[in-house]
């Protein structure tokens, strides 16, 4: 290991054998963990969509850093966005936690805050924005409308955004106070440190399953052999 480097990088010893093995013809990237990584109790690798696994202690280092620079998408749907703006202002000031850099492009964001009700017309855009955020990503559903549709059990509102995309943290309220959003973002930070994502047990996006079902195709699973039972995606039209 290079003594001049103060921080762990992928070129340092832990990952080097795996990278060399993956560079061989026909090689597959299989990162070490458990016994292969020195026998420390680590509880298994962290899986990402696409079959990539990361050893836990690397992920802990990355998660520690990520938790101090969670950049949400600059995206407000309804009145909850006013409270989200208050959270970004000087009184509540999420820049204390490295979250003030709300990115206007999903490709630069680490997650999104679903701030407000989502109409059926807007839903495809929300799904597209979610899919454009690179992994790993975290989603916070802010307010009763994003969680369940609230009083808008009507013709135009999605009854809970988790019927379309996986949600990490739910913040109830109508609208939630900025303190409540703050607590939700703290819970997001805990999940970042633990490298837990809403799509961990899912490995798929419910909206895309709905699409595949409507097209008569099998839902695509990145790793069919080990894919867990998918969470049944509630169709938006099943409200009584």
């Amino acid at each position, binding site marked *: 290991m290079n003594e001049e480097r103060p921080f762990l990088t992928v070129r340092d010893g832990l990952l080097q054998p795996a990278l060399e093995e993956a560079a061989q013809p026909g090689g597959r990237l299989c990162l070490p963990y458990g016994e292969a990584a020195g026998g420390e109790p680590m509880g298994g690798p962290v899986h990402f969509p696409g079959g990539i696994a990361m050893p836990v202690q690397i992920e802990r280092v990355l998660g520690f850093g990520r938790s101090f620079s969670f950049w949400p998408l600059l995206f407000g749907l309804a009145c909850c966005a006013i409270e989200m703006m208050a959270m970004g202002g000087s009184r509540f000031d999420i820049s204390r936690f490295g979250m003030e850099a709300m990115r206007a492009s999903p490709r630069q964001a680490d997650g999104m805050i679903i701030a407000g009700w989502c109409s*059926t*017309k807007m*839903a*495809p855009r929300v799904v597209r924005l979610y899919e454009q955020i690179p992994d790993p990503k975290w989603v916070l559903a802010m307010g009763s409308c994003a969680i369940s549709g609230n009083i808008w*059990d*009507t*013709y135009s509102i999605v009854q809970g955004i988790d019927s379309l995309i996986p949600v990490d943290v739910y913040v109830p309220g109508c609208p939630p106070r900025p303190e409540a959003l703050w607590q939700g973002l703290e819970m997001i930070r805990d999940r970042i440190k633990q490298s837990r994502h809403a799509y961990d047990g899912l490995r798929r996006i419910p909206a895309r399953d709905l699409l595949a079902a409507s097209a008569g195709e099998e839902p695509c699973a990145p790793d069919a052999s080990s894919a867990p039972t998918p969470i049944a995606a509630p*169709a938006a039209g099943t409200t009584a």
Partner: protein
Amino acid sequence: MTPGEDTLQTLPASLMTAVEALGSTFGERLVERTEFRGELTLSVDPAAWLDILTFCRDDGSTAFDQLDSLLGDHLPERAEAPFAVVAHLLSHTYGHRLRVKTALAEGQALPSVTGLWPSAGFDEREAWEMFGVVFAGHPDLRRLLTTDDFEGFPLRKDFPLKGTVGGRVRTDLRGKI
């Protein structure tokens, strides 16, 4: 004379001139004239809708150069003509305003005023998708606020208030959004 005639004195002088010009030109086709707190409303014959609004825009005494809004309404207690279309006009020349209404039966088409004010395009699309009022001659009468495959007219009084009805979430919109 209508009951509102006595209170017309509170209206702006320019608007009184405009109403007199409208009355002398269209006569009986102005069905009703009401005033409330200095705001004038004319109910007109739908057959004269386009003529009256053209006069409102082009005549020198009216000079309504801006269409503030155009909207629909559903009044099911009126069995003969349950639908209404309301246009709000504003004149920058005189600073006066006018509301023009018309009553429509189910399925009765109304001529589009997009040729007079291009801003009527979105308003007429919304009135059509929410109430089912057809605007004849509209260049692009598509749904505006709901999804393309939405069924029904959600702001009609008989549309179910509760439940996800009429439309559904579309996810196969690649290339369209």
